[in-house]
């Protein structure tokens, strides 16, 4: 089986400081990988380098494209990369307002992404938007309201609908449940898990919440000071951590 995404020696420095370095891994179709670590460990830098939001200083990010097979997305032409990020890739931001257009209606936010890949039939776009709003549990009668009139949890669900409407194969998520209260978090986790299973998505989830990765991720990567210190099956890393930092991280979680 060929990997969907193959990351090789990705490195990013901020002046003399290391953002992340020596990061290599393969992600296979249908796999969900979690990246955990404390603030400043380089997990968001890595995610942004992979998703093409930040230019890394070295390394390769190979993606199994539909037409050309494995291609290094870092050396890809700008239009091609932009097309990729509208079709096969999706990026869910921690703050929904970074991923949404706040002045456009909820339905418009979902429809816009469809139009970006060529959909032009208003009725069909609206129909698909209604369908996706339903899947993320937003009532149809809120479809013409702007996201600024939504609660934080609803905005996050809308952002997910906007991202998944084009049927991406790879989703990058940056703290998707951060800043939401626990009941909304549970709802969102349930939703994400269902979508991942039904659509066969691959996903990379950056978070500092170990309970979230335990429920969502198959595999885990632990980062500290820009380096990957441990990788493995999620429950194995959490239940039998090998590295000193992972042991500290796991033993620091509050028990409810």
């Amino acid at each position, binding site marked *: 089986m060929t990997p969907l995404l193959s990351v090789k020696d990705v490195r990013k420095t901020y002046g003399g400081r290391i953002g992340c370095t020596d990061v290599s891994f393969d992600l296979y179709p249908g796999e969900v990988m979690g990246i955990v670590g404390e603030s400043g460990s380089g997990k968001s830098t890595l995610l942004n380098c992979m998703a093409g939001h930040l230019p890394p200083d070295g390394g390769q990010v190979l993606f199994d494209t539909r037409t050309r097979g494995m291609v290094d997305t870092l050396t890809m032409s700008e239009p091609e990369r932009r097309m990729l990020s509208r079709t096969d890739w999706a990026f869910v931001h921690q703050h929904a307002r970074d991923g949404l257009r706040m002045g456009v209606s909820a339905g418009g936010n979902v429809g816009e992404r469809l139009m970006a890949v060529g959909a032009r039939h208003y009725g069909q776009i609206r129909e698909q938007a209604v369908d996706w709003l339903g899947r993320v549990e937003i009532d149809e009668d809120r479809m013409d309201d702007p996201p600024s009139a939504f609660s934080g949890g609803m905005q996050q669900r809308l952002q997910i609908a906007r991202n998944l409407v084009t049927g991406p194969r790879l989703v990058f998520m940056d703290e998707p449940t951060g800043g939401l209260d626990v009941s909304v978090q549970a709802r969102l986790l349930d939703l994400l898990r269902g979508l991942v299973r039904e659509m066969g998505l691959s996903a990379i989830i950056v978070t500092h919440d170990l309970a979230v990765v335990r429920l969502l991720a198959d595999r885990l990567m632990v980062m500290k000071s820009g380096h990957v210190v441990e990788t493995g099956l999620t429950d194995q890393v959490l239940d*039998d951590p090998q590295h000193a930092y992972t042991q500290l991280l796991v033993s620091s979680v509050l028990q409810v």
Partner: protein
Amino acid sequence: MIKIDNVSKSFTLHNQGAAVIPVMDGATFEVGAGECVALTGNSGAGKSTLMRMIYGNYLSASGHIWTGDTDVANAEPREIIALRRATLGYVSQFLRVVPRVPTLEVVAEPLLSVGVAKDVAFARARDLLSRLNIPETLWGLSPTTFSGGEQQRVNIARGFAHDYPAMLLDEPTASLDATNRETVLSLIEEAKTRGAAIIGIFHDAPARDRVADREINVSAFTPAKVA
């Protein structure tokens, strides 16, 4: 079906002055199809540790743990995931589920993930839940709010939903009343009849005597005390 070959394990506690605690050495045994082997030994002898190593939950320091064609001790995460999905079931003592998911779906999930049709999976889930005396009024609720015994039974129903060729059972009859204990024992017997290889930990001696074909004392694999 399950073949454990010269497996060892130690824990390194980095936050306690890097203390290394050897817990297992030279564990070797086999379990054939249709056979049930009970792990015995005192508390702390390493029964659960060994079971978790077979499931890939704990990392083995050396040796091989074959379940079918997969060597869990040396496999990639995705190979272990595939093994757990189709071949190796595990009934732990604790139910761990996504909040908000109804009990019926929790039980049917292992079947859905191997591609069984929805109606078949839910029919099987309903059958197991009624056999284990979970009242039908609770099926639509998330098991997170259930009593300890009910959670344990939901966990068992989930563990037995798919006909895994190999199963690990960690105290499946703990905290169950006589009727439910009887149901669980017959589920184990049915699994043996269809050819499942089973490794179990049973503190309940009469239950162990009834379903287990052999016993393996884990203390035999405890390393000699150093210092």
